């Protein structure tokens, strides 16, 4: 007991000292002494209609950085994430998730009805996050994670068979996830195709015009800001993440007994 008290007091002192160093002591460097040079660069270039050769045309600096300044990095991050999902799909290959070994009652009617009512609201909110990825904090991945709550809730409240009943199968999830990835892949090459057609210099993943590559994707539709390629990346990523996670949840909810039984069956055949 006494030892615990000593440890707790020491921890409290360490936290106080650390927070003092970090804030009042100036331990974070020039953070509190004005705006840093790097920040000034981003503030001047993320959304600057007066400097069309040096802007991402998005007021949301994080999205601008993630899908424009360092777009290739994000592209390969996305690839890593989907390779992980491919791994899960490979592990469960040949397992028929449509077989039912029990009835799947789920939770009580109260939970089920409330869960069902949440679905349309959840779709609206998740899609809003995706469609505002270039305007406000959030974006494709966050929106997809919010959307993937729906299959998770349905599996818990209803049982995984319910997803089969509403025809949200592993195959459909895989297909829609691939549509999302295809969207990202196509968006990567759109500026190059425009450049080839018009005989202009262009880079892959280019969003707005550069000094030596005057190809720009439309930043506005009417008076609405869509930030060129950023909205396309966000929406594609939204689709890919939503159904990537859905696919994982479906695979993870397959009963162990069902998997083992089918694997044994395979073993006997060969």
């Amino acid at each position, binding site marked *: 007991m006494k030892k615990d008290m000593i440890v707790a007091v020491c921890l409290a002192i360490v936290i106080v000292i650390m927070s003092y160093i970090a804030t009042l002591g100036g331990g974070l460097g020039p953070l509190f002494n004005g705006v840093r040079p790097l920040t000034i660069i981003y503030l001047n270039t993320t959304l600057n209609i007066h400097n069309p050769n040096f802007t991402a045309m998005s007021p949301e600096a994080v999205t601008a950085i993630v899908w424009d300044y360092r777009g290739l990095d994000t592209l390969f991050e996305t690839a890593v994430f989907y390779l992980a999902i491919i791994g899960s799909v490979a592990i469960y290959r040949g397992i028929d998730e449509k077989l039912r070994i029990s009835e799947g009652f789920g939770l009580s009617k*109260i939970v089920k009805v409330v869960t069902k009512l949440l*679905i349309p609201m959840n*779709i609206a909110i998740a899609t809003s996050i995706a469609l505002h990825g270039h305007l406000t904090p959030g974006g494709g991945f966050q929106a997809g994670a919010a959307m993937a709550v729906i299959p998770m809730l349905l599996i818990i409240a209803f049982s995984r068979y319910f997803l089969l009943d509403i025809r949200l199968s592993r195959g459909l999830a895989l297909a829609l996830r691939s549509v999302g990835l295809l969207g990202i892949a196509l968006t990567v090459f759109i500026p190059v195709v425009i450049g080839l057609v018009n005989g202009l210099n262009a880079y892959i993943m280019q969003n707005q015009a550069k000094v030596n590559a005057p190809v720009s994707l439309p930043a506005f539709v009417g008076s609405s800001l869509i930030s060129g390629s950023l909205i396309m990346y966000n929406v594609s990523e939204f689709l890919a993440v939503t159904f990537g996670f859905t696919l994982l949840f479906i695979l993870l909810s397959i009963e162990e007994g069902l998997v083992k039984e089918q694997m044994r069956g395979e073993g006997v055949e060969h």
Partner: protein
Amino acid sequence: MSRLVRAIPIIVLAYVVYIVFSGSVSTYDLVLGFVVALLSGYLTSNLLVSDVRKALNIRRFIWLIIYGIYYLTIAEFKAHSDVIRRILHPRMPINPGIVRTPYNVVNDYSIVAIANSITNTPGTVVVHLDEGKKIYYVHWIYVKAPDPKTTYDNIVKDFERYVKKIFE
């Protein structure tokens, strides 16, 4: 087509949620929000709506508002004051127990609305639902008597009167 008609109440709900969550009424949001609402309504109408005339009935909607006002003022005040009295009373007069409470509605939404109304008022919590016997199992802070009539009159009756007019 009937699926889209049935989706109308869901489209309205999803559209309102989209606009409120986005916090903007720009053309961009009004147009895309409607598309999203349409899509989510179409996808979920089979799950959520079986009789669209009931959902669009103005009289039921007015009863819903009346019930909302009744619930948030009178019902909540009665339940809160009762529990506060029991907490502050020097002898703390509680007699907790789980009782069977019958209900007389058939619609899913009615069953859930009554159950959640019971749970949301302090002092009573629905812990289980037996649809076959049409019984809620309710944890009650002061069990006056466990017979069906007492429990029904004290716990379900007031809510059921309104909910029947809204959802049944």
